[in-house]
């Protein structure tokens, strides 16, 4: 249902362009409702496997839902709903006519991606995701946005090609593209190693891990605010999710060296992204580099590879999705308000747009990882995991990253309170747009308060168990 609903919405929006606002919103609500329904089902029965067409793997395609995919779907529904409301307020009708079908297709792709247990199906979903994201970036118009979209498109296609080549090797090694079956048949052959390298690099390109992040800041910064929020919060997470699935289930994780490499790149991303963010003069560029930095954290879990580390990364991912979308929406409001997003010229917006700035600040709290926020729980789990493994290096990097985050966020907030030298006419920003940003930011904080419940959800079908077991076996041997 989760996949078909947005598709139907797309078709309706395409067929009846005048009613897009209402139709789109209805679809969004329906998707959110069915995500909750899935939550209910999973709570009752545990992990679910569903064979499309009734064939079952390896011949057919299986869908699979466990705690991991459930959380991704829920976060997508939450952020998606908020962005839908925001977009309806922010775009004019002539843009909305294009926005809604594209966005619903993107939503289709995300839901399909989080539910699929079939690698080739994931490839098609990835293409759907990438192309719709590119089209959405290009919606902004202007040469900067178009250039960014083009770069994004090429990178995305390159990533897909690498992924597909890896997939071909896997299929020809094991005669299946189903994740569960591959996991059973897995063995360590040259073809598997090549496939692992190809698919990992392809997905890293799409996830924008340092040093493959070059395309991300321009694309995220030049897109319309609602789209930037989508990209940073959800789209990059899509390819990360596949990567996580692959490393957790398909590829034997007891090989430590590649994991270490990913961790090192993640650490570099944290620092590099943080420093770059601090250097930016435009608000949206700053937020985009902050995404590069925050994505780095997710990869710290790979060398640690304990259940706690995975959960920490997952938690961070969720809270980042909420906080970063709130931040981009807030930045969009500021941009609309002042007509620019130069940080040094944020002219007393604190007084004039209190709700938006509050949203930005709250989101900042979560990004930095201050206590009670969702970001805090995630970082805490990761830190603890690092210390338990006795790997202090990772912990130091994480703390440095947080300090950098604090620096760049306070820089923005500081300018927001002071009067700029150049005063300017302010444009009206609708209440809805401030409120949605604020609600998202608030949700990022609330995420910290409901931690036990969420962590329990993650345990449905124990998606992280396998890797830890593999690691323990490795340690015992």
């Amino acid at each position: 249902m989760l996949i078909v609903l947005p598709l139907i919405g797309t078709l309706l929006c395409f067929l009846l362009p005048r009613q897009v606002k209402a139709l789109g919103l209805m679809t969004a609500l329906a998707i959110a409702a069915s995500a909750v329904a899935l939550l209910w089902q999973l709570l009752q029965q545990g992990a679910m496997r569903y064979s499309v067409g009734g064939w079952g793997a390896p011949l057919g395609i299986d869908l699979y839902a466990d705690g991991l995919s459930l959380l991704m779907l829920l976060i997508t529904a939450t952020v998606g709903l908020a962005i839908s409301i925001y977009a309806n307020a922010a775009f004019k009708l002539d843009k909305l006519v294009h926005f809604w079908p594209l966005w619903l297709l993107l939503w289709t792709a995300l839901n399909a991606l989080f539910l699929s247990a079939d690698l080739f199906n994931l490839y098609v979903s990835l293409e759907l995701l990438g192309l719709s994201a590119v089209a959405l970036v290009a919606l902004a118009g202007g040469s900067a946005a178009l250039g960014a979209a083009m770069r994004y498109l090429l990178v995305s296609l390159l990533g897909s090609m690498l992924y597909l080549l890896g997939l071909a090797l896997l299929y020809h090694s094991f005669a299946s593209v189903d994740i569960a079956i591959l996991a059973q048949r897995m063995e360590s052959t040259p073809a598997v190693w090549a496939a692992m390298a190809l698919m990992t690099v392809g997905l890293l390109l799409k996830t924008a891990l340092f040093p493959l992040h070059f395309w991300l800041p321009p694309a995220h910064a030049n897109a319309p605010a609602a789209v930037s929020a989508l990209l940073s919060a959800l789209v990059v997470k899509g390819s990360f999710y596949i990567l996580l699935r692959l490393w957790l289930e398909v590829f034997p994780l007891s090989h430590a060296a590649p994991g270490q490499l990913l961790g090192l790149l993640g650490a570099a991303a944290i620092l590099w992204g943080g420093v770059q963010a601090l250097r930016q003069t435009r608000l949206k560029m700053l937020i985009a580099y902050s995404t590069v930095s925050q994505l780095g954290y997710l990869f710290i879990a790979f060398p640690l590879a304990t259940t706690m580390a995975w959960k920490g990364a997952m938690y961070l991912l969720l809270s980042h999705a909420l906080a970063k979308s709130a931040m981009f929406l807030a930045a969009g409001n500021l941009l609309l308000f002042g007509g620019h997003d130069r940080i040094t010229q944020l002219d007393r917006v604190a007084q004039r747009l209190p709700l938006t700035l509050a949203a930005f600040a709250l989101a900042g709290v979560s990004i930095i990882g201050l206590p009670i926020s969702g970001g805090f729980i995630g970082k805490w789990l990761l830190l603890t995991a690092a210390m338990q493994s006795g790997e202090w290096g990772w912990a130091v990097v994480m703390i440095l990253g947080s300090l950098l985050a604090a620096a760049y966020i306070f820089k923005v907030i500081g300018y927001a309170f002071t009067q700029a030298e150049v005063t300017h006419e302010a444009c009206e920003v609708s209440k809805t747009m401030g409120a949605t940003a604020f609600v998202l930011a608030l949700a990022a904080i609330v995420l910290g308060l409901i931690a036990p419940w969420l962590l329990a959800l993650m345990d449905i079908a124990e998606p992280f168990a396998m890797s830890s077991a593999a690691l323990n076996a490795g340690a015992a041997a």
Partner: protein
Amino acid sequence: MTLLQWAFDGLLGITLIWLAWRTLASADLFKAIVLFIAFGLLMSLAWVRLNAPDIALAEAAIGAGLTGALLLVALARLNVVAAQTGDIESNTKQISAPEDSARTTAVVGQGVSNKHNLFQYFLVLMLSAVAAGLAYAVLSLPSEAPGLSRDVAENLNVSGVSNPVTAVLLNFRGYDTLLEMAVLLLALLGVWSLNRLPEQYESSPGLVLDMLSRLLVPLLLLVAGYLLWVGSRAPGGAFQAGSVLAAAGVLLLLAGWRPAARFLGWPLRFALIIGLAVFVSVALLMMLPGGQLLQLPPAFAGALILLIETAATLSIGVTLAALFYGSRPRSEQIPPHHTGSGGENE
């Protein structure tokens, strides 16, 4: 395997590589595209050699034909803009993109800076290593592997069709195809959302092209119908038929034909989405009697597949032709503050 076959395969492989290289390295973009089309045609020869006639058809029609047409029309539009914006100085050499020649010679030719050169050597070295690694990985695979052929063969009789490729595309892995139709629609949505493309360059179709299209279009329609119908038993199917349909559309568009404005409102939209719509409805209907999503009961599977394929063919054909046309047709544009206009609801 006879020696002759080996020689043929070897020659074909080398020619493919050579053509690919010439495509990518030739200084003239027009030449590059023509070479790319030739490359596509040889690819379909390779598909035939690999016992994959379905792909050969798809490659010849979509990979070489339509992609080539898309590339050529894009190049023509690039040059129209070049002529309009006035940087004609290097455009005297007929159809080569002006800004390209300078850069390519800088890369290929003599004027390469040392640093650039070093990077290139490094890249060649790296990529050779990658290729060698991949080749090793491929060669390490066992020389015989049934893949999923047995599963496909066992279930073929309940799939409703007897062409295994169609069975996989529309029954076993129909869900992939569903999403793929969405990708196709998405591409059109994306192209349309970019909207302000350069003006269609006006070509004078001429008598011969006009005659040709009059002769060929009915024939193409016939071929499309045949491919669709035969797809259940022999090579063919919705994608091949759809692209032949699109070829007819492209020919008509080239000959200067434009659909009447009243067809451009919702009839066009309807044609564009009907494939996906029918697919989704069938998928959902199958859940009613308690089946799984997209579970086609063997008794009706053949008919249902034909239904889906027919709708899909129409949509694919129209979508591809619309992609070729590029910008959103005129009468479609909805003025932002003027919601009551257009042929939307009449």
